[in-house]
């Protein structure tokens, strides 16, 4: 798994590549927490090159959404979610907790 962070004027984009499972989810959780600690609560998680995510990854996203929503207009949104991962998120009832966008620019423009 590989994580890169890109800063925009009104939000940060966190791009996650590869596979998120119980072994790698702590790294994702850490990246999301680091953003919060830096005062960033408007986060776009770009999943375009994400191959796999288990419920350990869902847990990291849920914790981040809780932390971000505590702040005024803070929010985690998801972009370019691959089909298989979208289906699992839907099954888990997570798609109601996260706005999702098809294109990074649309997600960034949301903030």
């Amino acid at each position, binding site marked *: 798994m590989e994580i890169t962070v890109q800063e925009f004027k009104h939000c940060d984009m966190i791009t996650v590549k590869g596979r998120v499972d119980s*072994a790698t989810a702590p790294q994702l959780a850490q990246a999301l927490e680091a953003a919060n600690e830096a005062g960033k609560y408007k986060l776009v998680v770009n999943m375009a090159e994400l191959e796999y995510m288990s*419920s350990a990854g869902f*847990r990291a996203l849920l914790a981040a959404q809780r932390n971000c929503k505590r702040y005024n207009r803070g929010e985690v949104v998801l972009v370019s979610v691959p089909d*298989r991962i979208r*289906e*699992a998120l839907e*099954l*888990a*009832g997570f798609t109601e*907790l996260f706005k999702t966008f098809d294109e990074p620019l649309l997600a960034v423009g949301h903030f």
Partner: protein
Amino acid sequence: MKSVQFAAKFEFLDEIRDFVGTIAREGGFGDKDVYNIQLATDEAASNIIEHAYEGVSDGVLELSCGMKDDTITIILVDHGEPFDPSSIPMPDLKADLSERKIGGLGIFLMRKLMDEVRYDSHPEKNSNFLTMIKRKR
């Protein structure tokens, strides 16, 4: 049925998913089913590592997998604490953000993604068996 033993550590989840994924693909399952079989097996193995072997550093996880006709069977055996998935309440998928609980989500996914999930504990043999079955449609 092919069998392989893994140290019960998260770092082997990649290999665990590859092992069942290869057998499922060779058995004729499509991409979507292969992904879901891998996800269910990952969730099962993660639960064993996290709960059955909580605080145990040298736990062993035995994974068996095979095709018969149009059915894949996956069996995970551990020698840790019995952990019955059916004792875990279903997550409330309608709960809002603040009330949403993450516990039980892995088991919920296993049940949704596979056709059958069975758990048998044999304390006299110090072994727990988790069997999952999925049929081709």
